[in-house]
């Protein structure tokens, strides 16, 4: 696969060009956290591609927290804009991979997810500075995009080194050939060195791997283990809403004038009424059961469905947790 270099003085040109085709979002580092912000031509362009993933997960670009999915009695078409996500990290690509399977791989295809996915160009960036909360390596993932995104780039001193993973990505490189140069061996070597360094850092942060039979252990966990694991949970649900792979939602209807608007809202399996039926029965009325459901869903059931974990190792859950519960500790000890 060929790589292409975008020299530092051409980055803004490229971003401006793309932003004329669709709204573009890129990472900005502010007050200790990175956020994906919209680019406006004329604004100061101050990206940070080195820091870890953004504080907020990116699932909302494909699966908004509130999304009108139908109108009743007469439905209407809701237009979706073209977008570029410029500089997202692999842990968020892994989230997209889970969503692609649920919303497009499993029949029936979700038309709203698919349309947003089709109209969003994803450009990922290497993640050279993993932090203590990161654990993608424990799940077998790399600190750089290697699939799912259309393009991936590595930030080198002499520019951004791009690689295309989709036809759409190749077409973008082709369209802007005039501002790219073909990469030299030295650039690719430098990329490899940076990636190896990042992997080394991750292996130092998380030196103990998860056990090979993790799904079986999660399935067989006894009540005492589960109680110990959830002991500090105060049911704030931050872990679930911050998660880039959680895909639960609820359909809720609202009156809009004479019509009804059906809205799809993010839901979370820790809510007490989540699984309760009309008649009152609740298969997970106890927090122990709900707490463990998250682990079963991510590390047992999803492996049975798709042979991958529904966890990307982004670490948002443990940073967001009101009780500072570290998911790694639970998985190491199960």
């Amino acid at each position, binding site marked *: 696969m060929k790589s292409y270099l975008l020299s530092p003085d051409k980055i803004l040109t490229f971003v401006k060009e793309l932003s004329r085709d669709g709204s573009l979002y890129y990472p900005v580092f502010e007050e200790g956290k990175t956020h994906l912000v919209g680019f406006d031509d004329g604004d100061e362009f101050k990206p940070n591609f080195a820091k870890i993933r953004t504080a907020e997960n990116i699932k909302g670009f494909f699966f908004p927290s509130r999304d009108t*999915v*139908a*109108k*009743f*009695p007469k*439905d*209407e*078409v809701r237009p979706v804009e073209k977008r570029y996500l410029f500089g997202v990290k692999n842990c968020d690509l892994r989230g997209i991979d889970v969503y692609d399977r*649920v*919303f497009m791989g*499993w029949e*029936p295809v*979700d*038309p709203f997810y698919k349309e947003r996915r089709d109209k969003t160009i994803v450009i990922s960036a290497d993640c050279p500075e993993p932090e203590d909360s990161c654990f993608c390596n424990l799940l077998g993932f790399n600190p750089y995009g290697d699939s799912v995104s259309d393009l991936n780039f590595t930030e080198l001193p002499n520019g951004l080194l791009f690689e295309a993973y989709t036809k759409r990505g190749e077409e973008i490189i082709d369209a802007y050939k005039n501002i790219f140069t073909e990469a030299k061996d030295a650039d690719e070597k430098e990329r490899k060195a940076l990636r190896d360094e990042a992997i080394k850092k991750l292996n130092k942060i998380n030196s103990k791997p998860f056990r090979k039979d993790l799904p079986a252990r999660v399935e067989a966990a006894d009540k005492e283990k589960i109680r110990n694991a959830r002991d500090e949970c105060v049911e704030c649900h931050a872990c679930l809403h911050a998660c880039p792979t959680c*895909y*639960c*939602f*609820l*359909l*809720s*209807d*609202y*009156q809009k004038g004479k019509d*009804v608007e*059906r809205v*799809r809202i993010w*839901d979370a*399996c820790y809510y007490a009424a*989540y*699984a*309760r*039926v*009309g*008649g*009152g*029965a*609740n*298969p997970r*009325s106890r927090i122990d059961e709900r707490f463990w459901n998250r682990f079963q*869903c991510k590390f*047992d*059931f999803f492996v*049975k*469905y798709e042979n991958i974990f529904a966890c990307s190792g982004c670490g948002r859950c443990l940073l967001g947790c009101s009780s500072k519960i570290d998911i790694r500790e639970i998985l190491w000890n199960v």
Partner: protein
Amino acid sequence: MERINPYYPIPVKIKKIIPETPNITTFILDGKPIDFEAGQFAELTIPNIGEAPFTPSSSPYDDDMEFTIMKVGRVTDALFNMKEGDLVGVRGPFGKPYPLQNFKGKEIFIVGGGVGFAPLRSLFLALLHDLKSYKKIYIRYGARTPQDLVYKRLIPEWQKIDRVDLLLTVDVGDESWQGRVGVVTVILDKVPVDVKSSPTVVCGPPLMMKFSTQRLVEAGFKHENIYLSMEKNMSCGLGKCNHCRVGRFYVCKDGPVLTWEEVKDIEEPFL
């Protein structure tokens, strides 16, 4: 748009409302907005209130679609305030139908409790449609009191049908009740079918499901021949939103009917 949006409910009017018991009513829709097979369910939208999953109680071969529904919560409360001619929405069909091809030539043992008899009526009518293909249909149906039995207007006719054996029981009788008294398991003490080959189909409230299943397992039915309706919270019906999951099953996609073989290792599968 209508055809490709799986979240859009098809509008349809309520044609007729038939009260069955003090808290159970049959709603007959004006036509059949969706095709379905016995055992599949639909999401019923009450405008401005929301939707909830119900299995039709009518035959898949009928021109009008019927639902027999118990008043239990927000959505059904609103539905019970609706009148003939009012508009509702229907989405579906969802889930897998009963595997009728596996029932051919066999005795079928149907066990219902309370409003759980509603989806079983759809199955029963589908079986009647092709009665010669089945050896015999046994129905065992229980409710709390004689007042709580649904389809009282239809049962005497069904009992007259050759090759249909229908027994009733109530937990508590009254002066006029001549039949059996006791929970539904009292009419499961004798199982007059070939348990090695016959399918048995159960639908009812959680406790009734639990004890009936126990009894049917004891009677010797093969675990993969015990078909159980799983009542779960279902929002999308598409196997995505995750609410209905029990063990590794999405009840809306893999069910709503699962076999005892599939759910027996799950702790309290009927809750």
